[in-house]
């Protein structure tokens, strides 16, 4: 059964594969015709097979030739590779020998190369920050080129280095005037006559200038140092011969630029804020009262001493007014006179004492206001601490110094007020003594003289 199934499947496969061949051949009508056809087909098939065999054989011969050719080429290349490897190792040996020869030949020159590079590097940084570069710009770039070059320096380059160093040395000892573009405070660039004092300072127009190493420009200081220093510059620039003293910056500009950060007295005063202004107002008010009191009391005591000398009482001073009371009440008895005098004295004392206690109050208030400023300043400091933390002491220090300024202001205002109060107080007291204790005595002396 199995074999039958197999042969059927095989037959079906054959039928299927033969189908196109059968379809290509002319349709055989009869069995005889089919037989003829098969016979003729077989003859032609044999022909074709012969031809294909021929073709295969010829192609095979071609491939054989190609193979042998490739084999030949491979052998050639292998031989060449061996040769090259040998050459390479030979060259390597030659190279190391030559290098050895080179190091032997370079010898001290190699050391010099290092020294030149080092010196050129040093010179570059020095030239960059030196104010001499304001006069001769671009020197540091040449030095940089020399410092970074990989080749051995040549003789002209070495000479250039030597000249540049010698020039810097000479320039550090001379005072010269030259023209240079100066960047003013407003940011404008102006061509100006600049005086260079060694490697220390640049001067122009009675002012100090600074050299900015990064941009290689000369700039005006945003704030000049104190006037006695700038005056020395003026004297120096004005002098025609001989020697003139001049303040120089031995740090070559660092101190001058630090000076611009220094707080002036006025700025520090303004740090006190509104409390500071109030303290100033207190001081001004106190001083005004003091002046007014001193003038008034001075006039009063002058008038009183005049009154003591003259016999007739006048209305322009306290003693005169009291004496007038006596003049008007000559006839009354002693007790009434005393009452009348007391009344007159009571009228006079407030005029003398007026304002004295106010000065004392102001003198007491000024340091208290200073304390207030201190506390508000500390509040500000602690607020900044809560905002920024304690990481930057500069923020805190700013607030603290602000707090201390008000304390200083308070004390500075209080001290003169205390002094002046004491002076005004003593004056008013001596006048009050005259009016209260001595007026009656003067009257008594008068009366005694008259009765005699």
């Amino acid at each position, binding site marked *: 059964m199995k074999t039958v199934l197999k042969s059927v499947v095989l037959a079906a496969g054959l039928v299927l594969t033969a189908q196109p061949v059968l379809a290509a051949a002319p349709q055989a009508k009869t069995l005889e015709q089919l037989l003829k056809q098969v016979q003729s087909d077989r003859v032609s098939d044999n022909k074709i097979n012969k031809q294909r065999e021929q073709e295969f054989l010829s192609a095979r011969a071609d491939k054989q030739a190609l193979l042998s050719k490739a084999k030949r080429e491979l052998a050639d290349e292998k031989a060449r590779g061996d040769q090259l490897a040998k050459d390479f190792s030979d060259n390597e040996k030659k190279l190391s020998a030559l290098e050895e020869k080179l190091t032997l030949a370079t010898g001290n020159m190699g050391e010099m190369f290092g020294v030149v590079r080092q010196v050129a590097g040093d010179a570059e940084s020095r030239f960059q920050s030196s104010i001499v570069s304001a006069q001769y710009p671009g020197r540091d770039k040449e030095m940089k080129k020399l410092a970074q070059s990989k080749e051995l320096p040549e003789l002209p380059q070495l000479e250039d280095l030597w000249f540049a160093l010698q020039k810097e040395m000479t320039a550090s000892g001379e005072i010269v005037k030259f023209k240079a573009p100066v960047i003013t405070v407003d940011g404008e660039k102006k061509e100006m006559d600049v005086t260079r004092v060694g490697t220390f300072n640049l001067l122009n127009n009675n002012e100090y200038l600074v050299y900015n190493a990064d941009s290689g420009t000369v700039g005006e200081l945003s704030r000049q140092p104190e006037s006695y220093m700038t005056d020395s510059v003026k004297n120096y620039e004005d002098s025609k011969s001989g020697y003139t003293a001049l303040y120089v910056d031995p740090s070559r500009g660092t101190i001058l630029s630090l000076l611009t950060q220094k707080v002036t007295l006025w700025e520090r005063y303004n740090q006190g804020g509104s409390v500071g202004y109030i303290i100033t107002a207190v001081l001004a008010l106190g001083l005004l009262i003091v002046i007014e009191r001193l003038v008034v009391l001075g006039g009063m005591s002058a008038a009183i001493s005049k009154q003591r000398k003259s016999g007739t009482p006048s209305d322009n001073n306290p003693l005169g007014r009291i004496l007038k009371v006596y003049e008007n009440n000559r006839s009354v008895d002693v007790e009434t006179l005393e009452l009348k005098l007391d009344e007159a004295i009571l009228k006079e004392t407030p005029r003398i004492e007026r304002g004295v206690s106010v000065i004392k109050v102001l003198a007491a208030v000024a340091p208290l206001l200073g304390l207030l400023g201190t506390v508000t300043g500390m509040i500000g400091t602690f607020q900044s601490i809560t905002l920024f933390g304690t990481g930057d002491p*500069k923020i805190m*220090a700013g607030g*603290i110094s602000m707090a201390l300024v008000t304390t*200083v202001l308070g004390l500075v205002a209080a001290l003169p007020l205390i002094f002046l109060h004491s002076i005004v107080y003593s004056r008013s007291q001596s006048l009050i003594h005259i009016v209260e*204790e*001595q007026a009656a*005595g003067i009257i*008594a002396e008068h009366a005694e003289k008259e009765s005699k």
Partner: protein
Amino acid sequence: MMLFLIELWESVRDFMNAGGLVLYWLAIVLFVMWVLMIERYIYVTWSFPSVVKGAVNKWEARSDTTSWYAHRIREAWISQANEKLNARMHLIGTLVAVCPLMGLLGTVTGMVHVFEIMANTGTGNPRLMASGISMATIPTMAGMVAALSGVFFSSRLDAKVKVAGHQLVDSMPHKF
């Protein structure tokens, strides 16, 4: 001797430099204070007794020492003498009181200096801050010392002046 004086002067100058500008003001105040106190001492011990003597003699010479007029004249003389006696005493007291205040001023300016240095350079350099701290502490000490020296002698002076005043009053008795 000369060398010793020079050395002394040098140490004083170092002290003044360390203390700052306030010390000079304090020195002026101290100087004025002591000049005034010495002047008062001299006046009370040498000049005032003659004033008292003159007043007492004048009083003794009077025939009438009991009337209202006599009372008033006596009071006026005592008042005049007291005024001479007490002249500038208030100023001395003020100067004594001002000394510690000036010391405080020095403290605060020194602290301002310290904080200014901190604001400029940070806390990295305690040496820079030390100059400000010595500027803060030395005036305080100097102010205290000045005030203490003044307090003792000015209170002695006060007592002396008071005693002299009372003696004057007692030496001009009313004769009934």
